[in-house]
């Protein structure tokens, strides 16, 4: 696969050394947390708990075809939403709204899928996916518009919209979209809009065709960022919005564009989850994809190639989590904690350097300065 051949090899090495060190340290700290909390897990102090936990994760994510499929299926939305967050970073925006955009995409495709449940699969699938993408795009467009024209910082508005999204979905699923005769509040099955599986059919570990989208989207976003003039504009706005304005670019348009395209990607992820995995939308959809995606994007240094690999890594953690809970008794929330710690060591790279004697240059996301700079004071005026 050709992803980002433009990145020089030396830089790539630097990019890998620090994240790898950060992940390793996070697993060590996670092990300590499990050790300390082992009396609560098993009823007594259990020094083997961390090892059993990590073994279960590896088994559940890597050691069988089923496990590998689970990993890729779990990684798909993480990569897509990770790209949404990463694209925001490139434009100097911190899109914490991946969660809401994902959920809106999910509910829209569930609604479309239910309405088109008896159409031909091609029509049903296409239109349902489009519905999800459009809904996600709309939910990304709102904070983009607010940021561009009022200066309301996207960190706060996207989080607020995440909470608003939960209420919108609760209303839709308990109200107009509620399936008749279901034992709990959920939308009807999408039936013909379901994404067909091509591997492991009927095992509960199916590989649906949605995962193939990644093979198109990752190179496409990479092309957009590094080969197209629009990508150059997005990166310029992210690195220096004043210079972008000076150079005749339109920061407002680019801010809206970046968040809208991000919303499309997150909405697509939501549609794929509904149409490919669950088949319907419950009133309270439990997911942490929006926050996982932040880890994915930062771990991948906001580059599409990096996000691809870090998405697979986090997908493995998520795929291995259920077996971890069953075999070691450790709650899946451990994965949330591990992610936070990975991010911590990624940011506190001085520790990683000290422990592993890494000499790689500090790989900072320059665009991040814009995220913080624009905080509370709005974007540059046109």
């Amino acid at each position: 696969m050709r992803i980002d051949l433009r990145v020089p090899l030396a830089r790539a090495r630097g990019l890998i050394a620090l994240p790898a060190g950060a992940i390793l340290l996070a697993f060590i700290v996670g092990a300590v947390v499990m050790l300390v909390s082992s009396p609560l897990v098993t009823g007594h102090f259990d020094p083997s708990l961390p090892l059993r936990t990590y073994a279960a994760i590896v088994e559940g994510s890597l050691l069988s075809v089923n496990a590998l499929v689970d990993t890729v299926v779990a990684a798909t939305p993480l990569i897509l939403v990770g790209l949404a967050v990463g694209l925001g970073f490139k434009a100097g925006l911190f899109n914490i709204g991946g969660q809401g955009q994902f959920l809106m995409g999910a509910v829209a495709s569930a609604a479309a899928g239910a309405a088109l449940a008896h159409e031909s699969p091609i029509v049903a699938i296409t239109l349902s996916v489009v519905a999800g993408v459009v809904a996600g795009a709309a939910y990304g467009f709102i904070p983009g518009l607010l940021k561009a024209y009022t200066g309301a910082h996207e960190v706060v508005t996207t989080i607020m919209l995440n909470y608003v999204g939960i209420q919108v979905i609760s209303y839709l699923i308990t109200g107009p979209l509620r399936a008749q005769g279901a034992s709990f509040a959920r939308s009807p099955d999408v039936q013909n809009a379901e994404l067909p599986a091509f591997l492991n059919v009927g095992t509960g570990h199916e590989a649906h065709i949605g995962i193939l989208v990644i093979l198109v989207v990752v190179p496409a976003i990479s092309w957009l960022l590094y080969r197209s003039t629009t990508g150059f504009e997005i990166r310029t706005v992210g690195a220096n919005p004043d210079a972008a304005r000076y150079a005749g670019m339109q920061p407002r348009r680019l801010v809206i564009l970046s968040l809208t395209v991000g919303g499309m990607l997150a909405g697509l992820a939501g549609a794929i989850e509904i149409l490919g995995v669950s088949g319907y939308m419950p009133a309270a959809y439990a997911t942490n994809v929006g926050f996982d995606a932040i880890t994915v994007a930062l771990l991948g240094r906001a580059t599409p190639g990096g996000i691809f690999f870090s998405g697979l890594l986090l997908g493995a953690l998520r795929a291995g989590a259920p077996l971890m809970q069953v075999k070691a008794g450790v709650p899946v929330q451990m994965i949330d904690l591990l992610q936070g710690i990975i991010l911590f060591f990624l940011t506190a790279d001085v520790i990683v350097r000290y422990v592993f004697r890494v000499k790689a240059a500090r790989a900072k996301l320059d665009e991040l300065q814009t995220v913080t700079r624009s905080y509370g004071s709005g974007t540059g005026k046109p």
Partner: protein
Amino acid sequence: MTSSPGPTVTAPALEMRGITKRYPGVIANDRIDLTVRPGEIHALLGENGAGKSTLMNILYGLTRPDEGEILLDGEPITIKGPSDAIARGISMVHQHFMLVPVLNVADNILLGAETMANRVFLDRDEARRRIRELGQRFGFEIDPDETVGRLSVGWQQRVEILKALYREARILVLDEPTAVLTPQETKEIFAVLRRLAAEGHSIIFISHKLYEVLEIADRITVIRRGRVVGERLPAETNEEDLAELMVGREVQLVADRGESHPAGVLLSVESLDVGDDRGREVVHGISFEVRAGEIFGIAGVAGNGQDELVEAITGLRRPAAGRIRLGADDVTMADPRQAHEHGISFVPADRHRFGMVTSFALADNLVLTDYYAPPYARRGVRDDAAIAARAEEAIREFDIRTPSATVTAGTLSGGNQQKMVVAREFDRDLRLLVLDQPTRGLDVGSVEFIHRQTVRKRDAGTAVLLVSAELDEVLELSDRIGVMYRGRMVAILDGPTASREHVGLLMATGGQETSPGAPQGAAVPGSAPGGTRA
């Protein structure tokens, strides 16, 4: 005052011996010796990057020297930080004022040396009283309650000096104190400095302006590339001698700009009103014209509407009223892209903020304003080969010193960064060149290079609009000079015949003190109505 009064003032108040400071790749200070006597105004002369600032940062405790010692009244001391320096009576007025704009005068002066009513609360009444008293003693009365951001630069400088006096400084370092002042304000500050010296304060006066140094200093130390290259008394030297010491070769003090041969009017600005970010009108009814093949310089103290005027012409800011025409085209409402396509090139004052993206490769920065058009892109797709070829060409032609075209622009030196911006903006099909502070903070070599290129563009028939807070630069390059004062163009003068004093007076007062009919410099044919005092 700890030193005994009387005529025996030969004992140095401050001695710096063998100060050495190395940075990776450069020696900023190489065994520098400096001796300052009580009551002496001691000038430290050197061009940008010669090591003056490093030396003073060492004295002020902001930087540690690698070698050398500092003696105060003959006692060796170590200075651990600014508070240490202040406690020993050393104060510094930085070139970029260290004032908090949103706080008032009293709070700025108090900061770090607070007068307390009790352990927690400030005694602002006592502070105000002392500030007024100090101001009276040194001949400038100031309102302690005025917000600093609303003061003119001249008065902000006085606040900086008051800050030092409030801390009972004995040794006062002033870093390029006149860089932003008009000649008149400079005179006033000089009077204050003389008064301070007469009261026994020692003053270190850092500058690269030769005539000022000759005027104010009791003694002059010249440094070049981190070394002391000479010490002079003003009476025993002259500008040529000092310039040669400072630069290390003979320099032409005035650029050879030659005769201009202007053609027809290219840029015409009519009754332009422009507002600032807060919506206040800061440019009022400005009219002027720039002809093809001439350099039109705008002189004025910073903050008199020049920035907004330039932004309006280059499309970064919408004018509130009036018209801007370029040849036959109306560009009043053009955005930056349209202005660019009309042939307006712009070298912005703050190159880090506007002119470049420090994290991008040099090659990408060289196409920052042209990235979207052939040959660098076609139908929205970049042509990396064309961009790389352009970079190689620009690096060669504009002598940009860089290991390659792929290094990030932030790693280049200031002079090379500006050459990069100049290469991009000068080397294209253009009609109007707008230069805003094009040589601020650059070394003499880069300044000469940019001035030569500017004159070359003029001679090739480009209209050049030059804005600079450095009056010397405006005088040196301009064929005609417009003076801006409080948002108005108060005079338009002939460049070669305009006098420093006269332009300075106009910058400082807007010419209010000259009665109508008094000489205003040579009248210029073709200057627009309203171009002289509205």
